[in-house]
């Protein structure tokens, strides 16, 4: 029994999502008495994937991400490894590739899972549905069983393994799509999906320019900037920041909500955060129902004071 994990390299290192997927993949392999293997298109993945327990690394010389060439390369790696379980970290590429591959192999796939276990020879996954208003436990039959893992749901844990055996797999070069340009966002902001800490602003900010208060705090803490749907729809901030049912569902270690009342769609998108701080002037705001620490007061004075206090704490 082999668990194969699709790995992505950024700046010579494995992406967090890949390290997390390897970590849960290793646990599944151990539970089933099998082995962990990794797939990458970059040999730089070797050291890291070994550290997270991969015994073999399947490498395809497939260049930058392309749905069709990567699907074919992963298919070759699955055949070569006889993988029973295939995991993808929940990145844009993982989420693009997993369904394409599943359809090719007539295989089952569960997306955005936050729990995985191997029971009675089958993969069981738990996944949030209705943006976290409910959780579905699903069972995948057939081989391979495929899942994409939710970022921040599985801790990345090294296992102290050595360098994996590297196995080449072929990658075709023909594809009906071509990436002609990649435009990196100028703002160089941390993505809310990967962040350990998110500072979110809501309608309480009164106008778009006031997002600077939120950005200052996020920057001081080293967190990402989140936003409620109302602020995105008002054009105050880009949709990439939106937390909730028509944005992203996030589960960081710490979520700070300022001026966010807590509409049901927003709460669904962040209520699995491990620690929640809410700042709102309305003591009846629904966000306080799920906040671990609620501060009833004016965000325009409290947030800047908090930014200063964080800077002081960090300076020590």
């Amino acid at each position, binding site marked *: 029994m082999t668990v194969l994990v699709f790995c992505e390299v950024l700046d010579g290192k494995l992406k967090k999502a890949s390290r997390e997927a390897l970590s849960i993949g290793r646990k599944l392999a151990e539970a089933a008495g099998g082995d962990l293997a990794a797939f990458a298109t970059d040999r730089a993945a070797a050291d890291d994937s070994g550290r997270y327990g991969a015994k073999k690394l399947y490498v395809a010389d497939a260049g930058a991400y392309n749905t069709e060439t990567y699907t074919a390369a992963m298919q070759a790696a699955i055949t070569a490894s006889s993988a029973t379980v295939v995991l993808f970290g929940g990145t844009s590429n993982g989420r693009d590739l997993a*369904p394409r591959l599943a359809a090719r192999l007539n295989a*089952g796939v569960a997306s*955005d899972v936050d729990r995985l276990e191997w029971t009675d020879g089958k993969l069981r996954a738990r996944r949030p549905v209705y943006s976290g208003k*409910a959780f579905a*436990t699903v069972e995948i039959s057939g081989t391979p069983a495929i899942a994409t893992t939710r970022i921040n749901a599985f801790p990345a844990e090294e296992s102290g393994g050595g360098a994996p055996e590297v196995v080449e797999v072929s990658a075709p070069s023909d594809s009906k*799509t071509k990436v002609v340009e990649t435009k990196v966002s100028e703002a160089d*902001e941390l993505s809310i999906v990967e962040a350990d800490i998110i500072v979110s602003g809501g309608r309480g900010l009164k106008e778009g320019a006031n997002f600077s208060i939120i950005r200052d705090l996020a920057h001081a803490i080293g967190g990402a900037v989140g936003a409620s749907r109302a602020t995105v729809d008002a054009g105050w901030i880009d949709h990439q920041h939106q937390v909730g049912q028509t944005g992203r569902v996030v589960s960081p270690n710490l979520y700070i909500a300022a001026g966010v009342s807590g509409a049901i769609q927003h709460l669904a998108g962040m209520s699995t955060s491990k*620690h929640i701080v809410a700042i709102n002037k309305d003591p009846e705001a629904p966000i306080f129902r*799920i906040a671990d620490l609620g501060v009833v007061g004016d965000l325009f004075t409290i947030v800047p004071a*908090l930014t200063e206090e964080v800077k002081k704490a960090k300076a020590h």
Partner: protein
Amino acid sequence: MNSVVCIAQVPDTETRIKIGGDGRHIDDTGIKYIVSPYDEYALEEAIRLKEKQGGDVTVLAFGPDRVQQALRESLARGATKALHVKGESADADSLGIAKVLAAAIKTIPHDLVFFGKQGVGTDNSLVGPMVAEILGYPQVNVVTHLEVADGKITAHREIEGAEEIIEASTPAVITAQKGMNEPRYASLKGIMAAKKIAIDSKSVSDLGLADSDIVNQRVTVVSLELPPEKSGGRKIDGADPAAAAKEIVRYMKEEAKAL
């Protein structure tokens, strides 16, 4: 330029989810169903293309009779044709749904196939790419901008901290992200015109598929549960901003271990 737009009908995002008696489905008593929000961007994009380049926009949905309402609304916004594939979609997994939609799409002339980037609710984000694979088409997922010219598309795909500009041949599958456009509301004229359009309907067997091809094919829901009720924690008065800030920092350090 002919487009097919696949429409998912989902519970209104305001819905408080309750679990049904079987512990595997939601209780749909009193639920108001809407067109999945991302599908609205997909539909709008297809209608704009039709307005510029002519052709048909066919909206396609698989499910029980209630999905005709979603098709009707889509016609009122400007789709020109509608196809309802009748069937119980509740126990179909994504691959099963993709097989039905792919078979239905083959019966409709098309250059582009549009989806929302996910059905809001089941939140799988799987069906679009699966249909692309079954039909052998290129796919561009999470698209924020699209241009179509000379049998070729140029699509902007949103990825972490960047945007890829991707060229693809047609036919192709596009999944729409919020921000791709500003969806229009149905006009009264549109609503009246839509009433004159007959919704075509087919059964799963008309498409050469059996229920066993689609129901619980690979992925079965074993149980559905609500998250544990979170009881709110401490609430403090923020009248003194400096004191409140100190308390939050203490919480961040000692309890969240985040500093």
